């Protein structure tokens, strides 16, 4: 039984055809052409598909269309405003906080949610929050440094 689900993605209203049990990840990637969120494990264990739902991070592979109906989804494609990178994106570039880049969208979306909730996180808070997203290349320390640099900047302190 096919039906359509309506929600917003990166501020834009969308309507996708699909069963309400279908995954958000599939809708984003196959119907909306937003391939920033990546498949990685299919069971919510690697975090590569992380997106935000009303500001909270969710695993898109384990999120059904029924769960997102009428709500707001933010993906990595929505972080930059027009041609202006989000400070986190710039910090990831400046700190070399990526290698293969496959987990980078999930890292950015997760860090973005963290800073929205906790603008000045401790290192322990960063580690605890980022721990759910796997990186095999070993960019972890750079990712922490990039997040810290954005958090510090927003305090107005050096």
């Amino acid at each position, binding site marked *: 039984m096919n039906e359509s689900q309506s929600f917003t993605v990166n501020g834009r209203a969308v309507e996708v055809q699909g069963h309400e049990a*279908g*995954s958000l990840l*599939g809708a984003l*990637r*196959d119907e909306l*052409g*937003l*391939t*920033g*969120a*990546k*498949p*990685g*494990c*299919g*069971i919510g*264990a*690697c975090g*590569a598909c992380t997106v935000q739902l009303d500001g909270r991070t969710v695993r898109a592979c384990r999120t059904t269309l029924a769960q997102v109906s009428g709500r707001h989804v933010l*993906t*990595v*494609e929505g*972080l*930059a405003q027009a041609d202006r*990178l989000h400070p986190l*994106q710039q910090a*990831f*570039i*400046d700190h*070399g906080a*990526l*290698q*293969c*880049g*496959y*987990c*980078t*969208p999930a890292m*950015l979306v997760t860090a973005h949610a963290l800073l929205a909730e906790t603008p000045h996180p401790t290192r322990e808070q*960063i*580690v*605890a929050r*980022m*721990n759910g997203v*796997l*990186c*095999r*290349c*070993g*960019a*972890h*320390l*750079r*990712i*922490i440094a990039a997040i810290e640099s954005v958090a510090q900047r927003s305090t107005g302190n050096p």
Partner: protein
Amino acid sequence: MSAPHPRPPRRIAVPHDARGLSRREFLRRVGAGIVMLLPASWPGAHAQSPQRLYPEDFNAYLSIGRDGRVTVYSGKIEMGQDVVTSQAQLVAEELGVALERIEMVLGDTDRCPWDMGTFGSLTIRMFGPALRAAAAQARATLLDLAAARLGVGTGELQASGGVVRVRAASERAVSYGELARGARIAHVVDAKAALKAATEMSVMGRSPARLDALEKVTGAAKFTADLRLPGMMCARLLRPPVHGARLLEVDVSAAQALPGVRVVREDDLVAVLHRDPQAAADALARVRARWSAPSSPLDADNVHEHLRGVLVDAKTIAEQGDVTAARAASPRRFAAAMRKGYVAHAPIETHAALAQWRDGKLTVWASTQTPFPTRDAIAARLRLDRAAVRVITPWVGGGFGGKSESAQAIEAARLAVATGAPVQVARTREEEFFFDTFDPACVVTIDAGLDAAGRIAYWDYAVYAAGERGAAPIYDLAHQRIRAYGRSAYEIDPSAPSVHPFAVGPWRAPGANMNVYARESQIDVLAQAAGVDPVAFRLAHLGDERMRRVLRTAAASFGWQPAAGPSGRGVGVAIATDAGSCVAACAEVTVDRTSGRVSVRRITCAQDMGLVVNPDGARRQIEGALTMGLGYALGEELRFRGGDILDRNFDRYRLPRFSDVPRIDAVLVPNDTLAPQGGGEPAITVTGAVLANAVYDAIGVPQRRLPMTPERVLGSLAAR
């Protein structure tokens, strides 16, 4: 079966297949401009394939277009190691153009000359010199052209920023683009091209932002599974339940009855395809299959004994002095056997491929480290000429050796030809674990002893199943013998179940992680017996000045305080040579004696990798290698039983996470007179070793098995 499928043609005639294109034909395709051809005979350029499509006498090239843009065609691929930037830096430096003017074309078998694959920390070390020479010679050619154009001698000219200027009159200038406009020049590069000295460099030795960074932080970067083609079908393949199982019967009727499903059965291949990947997965669940049920008796605990039993042919790696006599004379002898389990590559991007069969041409986008061998394998399997197959490599989401094998590309290619539709094969995580070419379980035995003066009297070393990388002598010992049993760890060995219960293959610094761990932990056993500080003990047996300097740098940067072990402080040291680089690491750990859990506090790693093309990129590789190495050292080991892979996802197979990563200090030891050496692998080879030695120092018990799980650390304490 569904509708009849177009059969693959027997053979498609393409002229010059085996011989490659003629030089003339190649240049006609490339068009006007200035083209630098790298000879295949270039040392280390690795073009020893008789099966290229390009003219046989060169294996890479760069071209300068009419707009002054420089395009570099390299068969290497980008999987995180940032060779997209470092290769561009080599060319920008020697050619004298801005980095932004360079476009990199990587891993496309129709556009790039043949390359054996991206592995072994070879890109900058082996391919780099050729690329630099090509750029240097291009610059010399441009100077010649400019001299003629401007009516002055080349000695009066200087080239930079893509412009040639008269030194004494800088308004007299001509751009590379203008020079290329009227030109149709193809130069074969020779070794005469003068490379810049380190002191003259302005692009090499700097750390520009990655060229792929912008698209990777915006989500625009396309990996293979991100690609879509009109009419694309997603395939799911029927897979055996355990390794060694054979398909006895299959019933696809229930799957075939589903709307929109296509089924392909071809020899060993049974696949269901649908436009929607979830529908393909649902259809696969309706395929009923009966398999033979072989039962391998091997598991993670008994496999080492098995390996020592079946691997009986030894290759002698080194033999010096008289080990037998020295052993007999040695008053203090120490024998040890060290073991390591199977380790998964586990890139976060699983193997994926997209294949399109159109007008007699098969185009396959694949996440692979070996686009050219993969193209050849596809052509062979489908009985096509190689010229009818093109492999394109998008950004690769991690490889670590595991994407040297690319069976998914062959599967996608077969299905595209069978169905006539573009077909995507993207492995599930369960398939990724099941079909991984694992880092093999392995064993090292060492029999070594001290003389009366507390120096190493003899060293008798045998490695089983890991291969010989990292096993060659590093210390100056009068009496030593080193033997390797079994295959080289570079080879993909699908020989299940005769040696291993499933496929094994190269894993970042193949074999070296085990060999360095085994050697360095036994060195610490000897140092402790001699009552000598482990750094001092190493220096006392180490003649190579380069290695000595790296070890001293690591110790000084770490703040190493000499003491005989075990000191209880939880500090360790280890050294290695790998991929032309010298590496030394010091680490500090704490061990919870109740739980057995090892916490790594910090690691300092010093590395002499010759001239450093991109210092921050080099440090990123060191940090990444050490971080990845935490896994095989402390936690990662595949569990399996009866041919079944028990760990098939990240809920059971645990990768290092943010909370596991210690402070890391990566120190580059300057050595600008040595050409660039390998950077992607060396630091991972010392990770297991340095952590094993730090644990030994903490609890006083040598660690004889990797990974050092809490249970094993506790067990080693109990057995003391």
